[in-house]
């Protein structure tokens, strides 16, 4: 599609461990459109972070390997790009924020050193100009006294401040896509709201697309335009936010939403859906959700469900999906 900035097609990633082959991602399809904030939700261990890291090819090999599929960014398949090209995209066209603000900045270099390094790597500017860009960015994330923050080491900043530094750093090269991997999970609730607000404001103003990974449906409802739900290494449903909350199509999504009032911990989500998350070494055949699915049928046990469009822009990967069945994708 033309509006797609990033188009992931049939992506499979496996990890080769002593315990066996972990099928972390199997045939994942996902598109991120220009200027939208796409939420990616799912329980811990379902492959969200692997997906995020695969986009920038940050999967450590060994043990991980991207087995197949395409990741089209502005029409180019990033999986076949030479490493040199790939590095030009990283941090420049696509950048990424990680979950742990405490450990994602290097403790032995100042904030300024690390920010300037990224700016000067991707933009041909002088030291002074780079410094000015950094100060501007820190101002935009509402950092008080940016000049002095640049001289500080990460351990001298609070968690919320560090995450704001990360946002400033990752947006400093005006990327087209920002991948945010649970950027607020490790923060206090009040700080969390503040950081989300800044993230929302800045990316909307710049038209930056965001792939926002979280397990917190409350945040999704608040922030995102569209949502993709992931279960055991597969996308099970994609929908505009309103449609998803109004009429969830997949039994798993319904289970997730049923647990929403107190969704802060993964464990509570699990409690409302019988059974446990399957191991990805030997996942169930057919639909991966069928052992826990209240609506499971015979074909669910051996046949992978195809996508069904149940509403405008609303796709469900389920044999029991409502509406008319579209052809194989």
């Amino acid at each position, binding site marked *: 599609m033309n509006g797609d900035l990033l188009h992931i097609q049939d992506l499979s990633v496996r990890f080769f461990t002593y315990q066996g082959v972990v099928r972390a991602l199997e045939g994942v399809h996902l598109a991120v459109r220009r200027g939208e904030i796409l939420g990616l939700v799912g329980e811990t261990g379902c492959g969200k972070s692997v997906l995020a890291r695969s986009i920038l090819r940050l999967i450590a090999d060994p043990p991980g390997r991207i087995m197949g599929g395409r990741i089209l960014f502005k029409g180019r398949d990033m999986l076949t790009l030479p490493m040199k090209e790939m590095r030009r995209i990283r*941090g420049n066209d696509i950048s*990424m924020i*990680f979950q742990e603000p405490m450990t994602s900045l290097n403790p*032995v270099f100042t904030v300024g050193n690390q920010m300037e390094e990224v700016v000067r*790597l991707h933009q041909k500017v002088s030291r002074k100009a780079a410094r000015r860009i950094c100060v501007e960015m820190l101002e935009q994330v509402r950092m008080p006294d940016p000049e002095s923050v640049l001289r500080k*080491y990460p351990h001298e900043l609070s968690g919320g401040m560090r995450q704001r530094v*990360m946002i400033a750093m990752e947006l400093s090269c005006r990327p087209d896509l920002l991948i945010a991997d649970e950027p607020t999970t490790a923060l206090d609730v009040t700080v969390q709201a503040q950081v989300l607000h800044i993230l929302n404001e800045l990316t909307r103003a710049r038209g930056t697309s965001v792939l926002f990974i979280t397990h917190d449906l409350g945040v999704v409802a608040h922030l995102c335009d569209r949502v993709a739900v992931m279960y055991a290494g597969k996308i099970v449903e994609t929908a505009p936010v309103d449609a998803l909350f109004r009429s969830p199509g997949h039994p798993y999504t319904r289970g997730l939403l049923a647990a929403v009032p107190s969704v802060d911990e993964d464990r509570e989500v699990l409690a409302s859906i019988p059974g446990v998350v399957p191991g990805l070494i030997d996942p169930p055949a057919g639909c991966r959700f069928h052992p826990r699915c209240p609506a499971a049928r015979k074909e669910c046990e051996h046949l992978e469900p195809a996508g069904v469009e149940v509403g405008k822009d609303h796709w469900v990967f389920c044999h029991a999906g409502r509406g008319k069945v579209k052809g194989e994708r």
Partner: protein
Amino acid sequence: MRLLRYIGKRLLHLVPVLLGVTVLVFFISHAIPGDPARMMAGQKASREAVENLRRSMGLDRPLHEQYLRYMKGLLHGDLGRSVRSQRPVVEDLKDFFPATLELTLASMTLCLVVGLPLGILSAVRRNRPLDHASRVFSVCGVSMPVFWLGLMLLLLFYRNLQWLPGSGRLDVGLDPPASVTGLYLVDALLEGNRPVFLNALSHIILPAFCLSYVYLAVITRIVRSSMIAVMEQDYVTTARANGISEPVVILKHCLKNSLIPTVTIAGLSVGELLGGAILTETIFGWPGMGKYVVDSVNFLDFPAIMGFTLVVSLSYVLINLAVDVIYAFLNPQIRY
């Protein structure tokens, strides 16, 4: 300025340690079963001479008085008189110190030049052939009897291949360069004396390698393991996700972090280097403090042995002070 205050604070902490070191050396030389006066005088001294020495040393006094006396001597730079050379031990050690310093510095340089890259490469290419080879190299290093390694090097490079000289700092007949630092390599460079420099270099290669091997093994191992630990950190992924090239990720973002544990171990392992110098200098006829002390051992020259022990231990303590300062410099999380 804050760094200076930090150093000052560390120096203050050092005072009890230094006192302890002198107490222990004092005890070894004065209170060990046996007759200290006999030990100080040497095995061949006459009975009368021993009695005289006992009185003049104040050994008939209570122990704490003796210690005060000993400390007073120390503060005036008095380590006693060598039985063998009949000169003050301090003078002897002063003569032999530069050679030991030169050898130790050369060995440390070798360790940094070889050990650091080897450790980094082993970490980057973990479980590949190079890593396995470097592991074998390290295990042999920490298990190697230094004196035997020296003899084997002599056998191979001096006797069989005849590539390198086998003893001393310079060929007989060559005049040492004018003494500025006492280090022949540096002095020869300052003088612009090429033949002497090359000759001194050829003499230092074998002993420096011999002395550095154990230390090299320790450094390689610690660099490897701390690099591996650092390479798994989130900030390294951040750096990669920002498009920073792999050499910069390794040499900037990983290396400085992994040096933090490395310098601590490196400082503590200098003890191996100082102990190893005793053996290496003996094997290669290197005229340093180590050879001096072994010669003194054979002569049972106690003032010389104790003087050496004290000086070397003080150096060890001071080196570790320097390491603490480097540590604080590398690690911004140290509040000083």
